[in-house]
């Protein structure tokens, strides 16, 4: 008796390229996720609080850092740093104006100044900064704190 020979044609999809596809995805996410640049002109440790509010519109936030300079040749007292540059108290007004200019017309008056200050700063210095901000009509202040 003659059996007809069965033809077994295995149709397999090669999975060898799967890792490549997944790696491509991984790289896409890694590239598209932009890390937030940390301002590292000053050293500081933010205080902790519990009743925190979250800002919905992140683009309104402009950051000011208050801490001790990392580069000790710049002095040992508390200094202000903005956009990775050390600025003087008297330069805050100029900084406010330039930051405000980056916002859309409708949001210009809603700018939020985020104050990331070291927990050991004197309130005198903070108040001086606030007086300066008030002069230039940047009146929304967000004291950056960590979650307790």
């Amino acid at each position: 008796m003659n059996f007809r020979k069965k033809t077994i044609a295995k149709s397999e999809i090669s999975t060898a390229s799967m890792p490549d596809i997944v790696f491509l995805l991984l790289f896409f996410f890694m590239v598209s996720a932009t890390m937030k640049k940390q301002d590292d002109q000053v050293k500081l440790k933010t205080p902790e609080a519990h009743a925190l509010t979250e800002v919905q519109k992140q683009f309104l936030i402009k950051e000011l850092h208050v801490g001790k300079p990392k580069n000790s040749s710049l002095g040992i007292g508390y200094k202000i740093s903005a956009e990775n540059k050390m600025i003087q108290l008297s330069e805050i007004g100029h900084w406010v104006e330039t930051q405000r200019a980056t916002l859309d017309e409708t949001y210009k008056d809603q700018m939020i100044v985020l104050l990331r200050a070291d927990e050991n700063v004197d309130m005198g210095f903070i108040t001086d900064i606030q007086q300066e901000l008030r002069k230039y009509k940047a009146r929304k202040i967000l004291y950056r704190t960590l979650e307790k």
Partner: protein
Amino acid sequence: MRIKKNRSEVTVSAGSMADIAFLLLIFFLVATTLSKDKGLMIQLPPDMPPTKTRIIDRNLFKIHINSANKFLIENEVRTNLEGLVDEMKEFVLNPSNSSSLAENPEKAIISIKTQRGTTYSYFIEILDLVKEAYYQMYGEKLGITSDQFRALDRDNPTEMEMYQFARSGLPMNISIAEPNKK
């Protein structure tokens, strides 16, 4: 003469590579949190010469912090701040209609005054408690906790309505007095 080579092909299965790569992908997706900036928000008063308004003393809850970081709250020296949140809530809402507490929540003002030498973290500690007191009051109005109140999504119309209802008639009057000149 031909010698038959014994060829045994060694292959590593590449099928599980995909799983490894997926694991990596998922790890990175989970590990990267897009952190929103959080903190304590206040609004500074406009830069104008101070206008004199008479505020009746009973409507003002005074908190002073001196340059030695000691608290003076309602003219009493305080060392621990336990129960301050409840005191502030009682002051603002004045459920017993006491003549020494605020006339009504709209008129109540909580004033924080610091000196130039006060340390920032003590000021933040107090501001945190004041905010917490108000958030608790808002939450209680809606029957939720202060954390739940803060988590309300203001883009959602029903939650926005809840938010506005809670805040109506109960403004967050926090006054941050300028320290005296040196």
